[in-house]
């Protein structure tokens, strides 16, 4: 039997799993929307935190609070981090934008960085990554490797960031395989392994052989791995993290996020007093995204093509949404010879041609 005291300790440990270190160095706080876990959005941010801590040696200490709900509770957590001694706070989910801004105005001598939002201030920066660049390359691989010409996409919510991924994947796939189509299942949840798995299996049973996802668990890659055993044509692309542990043979590659260099750079700037504001949306060029190791099943010519196109994207010579970009209903969104602007990317609310599903209405 567990004693009441140890139960209390357990609860305490589970609720406030924060890392606390003492000393004089600059303290950097992180607010995470979900548990760190072993893969996914928050896991990548935590890898970035650890890298930054390592790179800056004894100059910084870090502290994180995980599983913080978006909304009013976030403000309390951010304030607590500041009053607990943090000079810099990174808030890593869209819903933290307003609380972050509010606290940043209350503490003008501290520094705040918010991921994926759009509000900035004298002491508040914003950062995000061009995940769609990686999606495009995954699409290229899918287009080359598909036998059924159908890809399946398990998606969470129809917001611009998710649509950018679906559309970039489709653009990439169709750039090498005009017959290909992408089917989307919305599970209306960021995290429900059971539903994600069912959606992946549904897509596979309906003929999709290239599976990817924009949800938070590893269930989709795992489901593809299971089906790969019976049908060697079935492959998956991971998202957020390298999930090859869950799909050693089925995962072809995946779009992974790398925040470490950015965190190191910006914390250095703040400590040196040279920080002049951040509004960074980085991709391959800035090293904020990377493809997971390529599966040996990918033929050499496809591998070479992907490496070439990745260089072109990083060098600005290729854009996943280079015109002509045509929406599903036939309307031209970007004219030939032009690239989609960041503002247009940020307000994406349509499917491009090649997506075979219907977009949920607003």
């Amino acid at each position, binding site marked *: 039997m567990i004693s009441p005291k140890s139960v209390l300790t*357990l609860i305490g440990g589970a609720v406030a799993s924060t890392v606390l270190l003492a000393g004089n160095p600059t303290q950097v706080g992180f607010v995470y929307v979900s*548990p760190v*876990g072993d893969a996914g959005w928050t896991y990548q941010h935590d890898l970035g935190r650890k890298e930054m801590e390592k790179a800056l040696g004894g100059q910084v200490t870090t502290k994180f609070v995980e599983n913080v709900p978006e909304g009013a509770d976030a403000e309390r957590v951010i304030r607590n981090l500041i009053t607990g001694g943090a000079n810099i706070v990174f808030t890593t989910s869209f819903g933290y934008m307003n609380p972050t801004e509010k606290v940043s105005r209350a503490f003008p001598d501290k520094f705040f960085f918010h991921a994926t939002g759009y509000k900035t201030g004298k002491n508040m920066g914003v950062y995000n990554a061009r995940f769609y660049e990686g999606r495009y390359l995954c699409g290229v691989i899918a287009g080359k490797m598909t036998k059924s010409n159908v890809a399946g996409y398990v998606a969470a919510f129809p917001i611009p960031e998710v649509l950018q991924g679906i559309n970039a994947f489709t653009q990439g796939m169709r750039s090498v395989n005009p017959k290909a189509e992408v089917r989307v299942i919305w599970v*209306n949840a960021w*995290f429900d392994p059971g539903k994600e798995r069912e959606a992946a299996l549904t897509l596979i049973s*309906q003929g999709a052989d290239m599976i990817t996802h924009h949800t938070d668990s590893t*269930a989709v890659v*795992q489901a593809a791995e299971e089906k790969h055993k019976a049908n060697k044509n079935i492959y998956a692309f991971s998202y957020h993290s390298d999930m090859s542990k869950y799909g050693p043979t089925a995962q072809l590659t995946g779009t992974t996020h790398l925040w470490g260099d950015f965190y190191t750079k910006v914390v250095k700037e703040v400590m040196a007093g040279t920080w002049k504001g951040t509004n960074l949306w980085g991709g391959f060029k800035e090293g904020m995204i990377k493809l997971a190791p390529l599966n040996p099943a990918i033929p050499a010519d496809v591998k070479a093509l992907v490496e070439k196109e990745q260089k072109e994207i990083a060098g600005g010579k290729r854009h996943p949404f280079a015109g002509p970009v045509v929406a599903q209903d036939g309307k031209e969104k970007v004219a030939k010879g032009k690239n989609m602007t960041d503002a247009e990317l940020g307000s994406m609310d349509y499917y491009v041609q090649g997506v075979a599903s219907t977009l949920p*209405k607003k």
Partner: protein
Amino acid sequence: MQPSLLSAVIFATLVAGTPLIITALGELVTEKSGVLNLGAEGIMSIGAVAAFAVTVHTGSPLLGVLAGMGAGMAMGLIFAVASLTFMANQVASGLALSIFGVGLAAFIGKPYESQALPSREAINVPLLHKIPVLGHAFFEHQALVYFSWALLAAVAWFLYRSRTGLVLRAVGEAPVAAHSVGYNVVRIRYMAVLFGGAMAGVGGAFLSVFYTPLWVEGMVAGRGWISLALVVFATWRPMRVMIGAYLFGGAMITQMFVQGSGIHLNIPAQFLSALPYAATVIVLVLISRNKNTIRLNSPASLGQPFSPEA
């Protein structure tokens, strides 16, 4: 619909419904004895993490499921001590158990988050699984799917055909009367709560060892609450619990097949996602709308504490 597609839809429906059936049937027995245990979500989480951990260490899914069952019973015991011995409010104790269970499971599960279990081979029922279309749909499942059917038969037989089941229902209907003819109400309720906990633990074990063979915090994702709702909407009748669970699973799978088919439909996906909940509630309310049967089947003393001394 193509036969292979129909087969796939039925197959996925049965799998999706299984954890709900096992958990809900356990809860049904608990509630029939007059105890409302709202802790299913927490118990399932604990069952899932215990089963996963034991399967990782021993490599045996059977031991894993047994561990999930044991952990579920331990959770049931906590609830029983609080609400039956100390007569704490059942609703409050149940809710507390849910929150506690989810948090404790996350804590225990930390070291297991990086591990994955191999997916389990299905057990094919000899001969029957060769029937075209239906063979794959019904007879190529994991053991716990068959277990859920056996459980339904056992619970229905126990409640309506066995003497002990009659006593249990009497305790749920009129604990004072049952007490006055010499039955130990508290002990019977203890047993019912432990059974409910054990089944919720097995439901959780199904999720982490068979359904998605991994452990992550929050993976039960509301299935405990859905099971609780199923019991009420099925008006405490075992067969309807199963119908409700399959309806829920079926609606979820069907809407996914519709989305994944690439057919152009002008239905918002959010509506499709809400459909399983709506369909289950509507159908169960319709088939159970007779006021008399509701009165007959709902345990009269549900949620009320009983003290033999009073």
